[in-house]
């Protein structure tokens, strides 16, 4: 007799509902395994996105018992007793069943001003290890978009999507801003048009990150402090006026000249 109830949201743009599936539990399975068994036995038309089954491709993001998680990394034996609810990511428009349209993220990716190094010096670029290490954490991102999904700024307020990059792209902005060879200054852009001020640092992005990137502490708050340097701090503003410095150093500005 089936001992497991999987309560899965089935539907598309026309609407949908939670459907219960009874199935036997098997030792050592993750949620994605059970979804695959359901596809093989009871629901061949159940749509779900997956690829690596190893927590590295970021494809199988969903909400398991209401929390954003990777289906391939969520062990069945670690979930509580009772029906297990699987729903698609809430923040993005539904395509079908557990598959959502995440193109919002690709639009925001296009808006990130690219890495802009100075002209190649003789002998090539040189970076010290301590500078390389700083951005390594941000490179771990697998683009599962669970941080974007859980962020209430767009999850509960659709209208903010127009000008809100979201946690995934804040770590990209932070990585570029901390890059010693980059010459772009994105502080005003990220403050004014990418919605940095909308983030109220409630740290849900950090809580759900499967790569354990300290998104808030190491990317968003440093970006906010940089925005304070560039825009809000009156002493920094006065210092720039007195020294006649632009927000970019002379060396950085010079690097942009042809």
């Amino acid at each position, binding site marked *: 007799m089936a001992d497991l109830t999987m309560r899965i949201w089935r539907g598309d743009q026309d609407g949908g509902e939670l459907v219960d599936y009874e199935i036997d539990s098997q030792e050592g399975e993750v949620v994605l395994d059970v979804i695959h068994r359901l596809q093989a036995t009871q629901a061949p038309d159940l749509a779900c996105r997956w690829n690596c089954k190893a927590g590295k491709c970021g494809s199988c993001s969903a909400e398991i018992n209401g929390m954003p998680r990777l289906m391939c990394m969520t062990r069945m034996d670690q979930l509580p007793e009772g029906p297990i609810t699987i729903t*698609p990511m809430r923040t993005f428009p*539904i395509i079908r069943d557990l598959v959502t349209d995440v193109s919002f993220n690709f639009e925001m990716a296009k808006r990130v*001003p690219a890495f802009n190094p100075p002209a190649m010096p003789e002998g090539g670029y040189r970076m010290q290890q301590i500078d390389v290490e700083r951005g390594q954490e941000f490179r771990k991102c697998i683009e599962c978009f669970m941080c974007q999904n859980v962020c*209430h700024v767009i999850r509960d307020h659709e209208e903010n999507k127009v000008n809100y990059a979201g946690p995934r792209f804040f770590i990209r902005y932070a990585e570029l801003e901390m890059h010693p060879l980059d010459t772009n200054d994105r502080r*005003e852009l990220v403050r004014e048009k990418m919605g940095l001020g909308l983030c109220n640092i409630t740290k849900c992005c950090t809580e759900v990150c499967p790569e354990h990137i300290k998104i808030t502490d190491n990317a968003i708050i440093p970006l906010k402090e940089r925005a304070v*340097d560039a825009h809000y701090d009156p002493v920094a503003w006065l210092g720039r006026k007195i020294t006649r410095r632009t927000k970019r150093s002379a060396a950085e500005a010079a690097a942009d000249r042809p």
Partner: protein
Amino acid sequence: MAVDDATITEVQLGGRRGGPDVATLRTDKWWKLPVTTVAVLSAFIVYATWAAFFGTSNFFYEAHNLLSPFYSPCLGSICKTQGVTSSPFLGWWQLSPALIILVFPLGFRMTCYYYRKAYYRSFWRSPVACAVQDAHSTYSGETRAPLILQNIHRYFFYFGLVFNVLLTIDAVQAFIWPGGGVHMSVGTLVLCLNASLLWLYSLSCHACRHLCGGQVRNFSKHPIRHKLWKFVTPLNAKHMQFAWMSLIVVAMTDVYVRLVASGTITDFKIF
């Protein structure tokens, strides 16, 4: 800062979302943490308000030189009546000195990145927990007044350092008898613990981390700032713990000083 405009398209809003239209599907006890936060912060606010407005006696234990952190530096005319000798400023101030002093530590904590998370979640419910629906229909974050003022956190951090120095001086002075000589009591250790935790809370602050070295692009060209940043970064990881410990201990220190000053308990002398 060029963005390639040719590739930018409008974000398409709308479109039906998947999942049932309910506030949350979470089945765990997600409400425990916000409830605890509300209880502890509310208790502190009630106690601090009482201490500031009505607790204008017994904040100084003259026999062992113990001064409550809520009343340090002791300003105003009330200090002389309580026997505090080092009150050089604002002799004309008739009200509780805590009303002047508490603005700065309060501002530091109100604008602190950790406390912002705590009260946005617990009090403002925006959101009360992850993947639980925001309690408000509109949201502008920290982009408008008054919340845009959170950006002056670093100035409260600077003021906070001044108070840390003053409280450290109080802790050192508590080792000195009013008539001369050195002693140690439970009270002196309590003041030391309070000052230490406040230093740890301040040094672990995100603004401190940024100002120490976080703001530079190139660590290899700023080795001293990199060392400072490396020193405060592990502290920063414990900022939440220091925030709670320092908050509770500062209130307990005030309670302790009042209890010994009122004669309710004895400040046990170690030597």
